[in-house]
């Protein structure tokens, strides 16, 4: 069932939609999780997930295997989300409402204590947007501040300040 991933990518690059669909199936969970945590909004996360895959399809030709396909795809996803969020913020939309808390309760991979995880997910979703974005990118996804600065255009100092602020707010929220 698992086709050789590099073969899939090559086929998708040559325009094979079935190969791209297989890539989609393999990565959509990660992409969606990233979008959902960054936006705390299931509807927008679904939109951004679609935008990310469409963009990935259009940009496939420029992927030369200089990194893992997944890293390339997730960085592209972060770009899509940040561009979209900036546009919405300029128009003053509230983009950080969690209108589908149930989205965080669906069955998923990985071990862990379900109750505590859910508290943490909810607390992250309730963070102010700047702090939430940096926390998700740094502590959940593992990007370093320099990478976050490159991906999002904020300064490294701001990234650190937002991260420390997020952690403080989360500790306060979770100790109630």
């Amino acid at each position: 069932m698992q086709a050789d991933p590099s073969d899939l990518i090559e086929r998708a690059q040559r325009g094979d939609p079935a190969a791209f669909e297989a890539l989609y199936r393999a990565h959509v969970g990660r992409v969606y999780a990233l979008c959902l945590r960054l936006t705390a909004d299931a509807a927008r996360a679904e939109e951004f997930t679609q935008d990310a895959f469409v963009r990935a399809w259009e940009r496939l030709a420029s992927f030369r295997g200089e990194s893992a396909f997944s890293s390339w795809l997730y960085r592209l996803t972060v770009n899509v989300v940040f561009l979209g969020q900036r546009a919405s913020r300029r128009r003053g939309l509230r983009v950080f409402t969690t209108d589908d808390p149930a989205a965080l309760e669906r069955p998923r991979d990985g071990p862990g204590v379900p109750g505590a995880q859910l508290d943490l997910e909810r607390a992250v979703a309730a963070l102010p947007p700047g702090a939430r974005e940096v926390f998700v990118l740094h502590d959940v996804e593992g990007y370093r501040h320099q990478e976050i600065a490159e991906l999002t255009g904020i300064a490294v100092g701001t990234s650190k300040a937002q991260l420390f602020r997020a952690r403080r707010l989360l500790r306060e929220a979770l100790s109630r």
Partner: protein
Amino acid sequence: MTRHIACLGLGLGSALGAVGPGAAAQARPAPIIRIEQRWPFAADGSVRIVNPAGRIRVIGWDVDTVAVSGHGAGAFAADGNGSVRKLVVTGRADLEVHLPRGARVWVKSAAADIDVVGVDGTLDLNSVSGAIQVVGTPVDVTAETMDGRVELAGGTGRARVKTVSGSILLRGASVDLGASTLSGTIVVRAAGWQRGGTGVQRGTFESVTGDVRFDGELGRGGIVELESQSGAIHLRVPGTTVADFDLLTIGGSIANGLTSDAPQRGTLRFATGAGGAQVTIRSFKGSISLEAK
């Protein structure tokens, strides 16, 4: 060639039908209008006001009523019900609208100045060349103009101000401020910033060629960013301010009147104590200066 009917956004609304070629176009003076109406209204209802030219004054009061009065030239229409009311002027008018303090207010003008006093609800104010002035404590303000001047005084929960070349003046105590301009100036006077105890959570001020001046107090835990392309950036804060400072300019100069730390090749990073505010300043070639109050 058909002469277009003057569209809503511009100047006097002297309306004409299609004019045949060679016919002289004569503008009839628009009808004089006098406005005096009121309706019962929900304390948290929504009011939309459109007035291309003249003046719009919005005054919040403690009565569950919307009352509009004024005079002008053109036409006036008011539709709505007890919780949504639209007031639309075609032409120009001097309007005064009283509405419940907690209302959500949306105003659009082209050349008319917009003045809002005493509203605690949400404000969304748009003009092209008209000036916008807000006095009071609205919980959320969005104000955009092209070259009109914008001034907010009092205290807001959240404010977003944008102009192309209009100057921006922000005074008072606010929690979350954002101001953006291309060639206008930004002046932030944050006296009493710490009123209420929380201090500013965030402030973002950016311009391309206009100068950016911040004169006030920084709350602990606040994040303030000032950015310009070629405009000069000036920050004046009390000498006792606790903050991390992160300054960078590509081609401009940095002058530090707060501490004895000196810039190195366009960069200056220092902290006056730990755990305070975070100040980030970026410029392409605009000068950056820090001053102690």
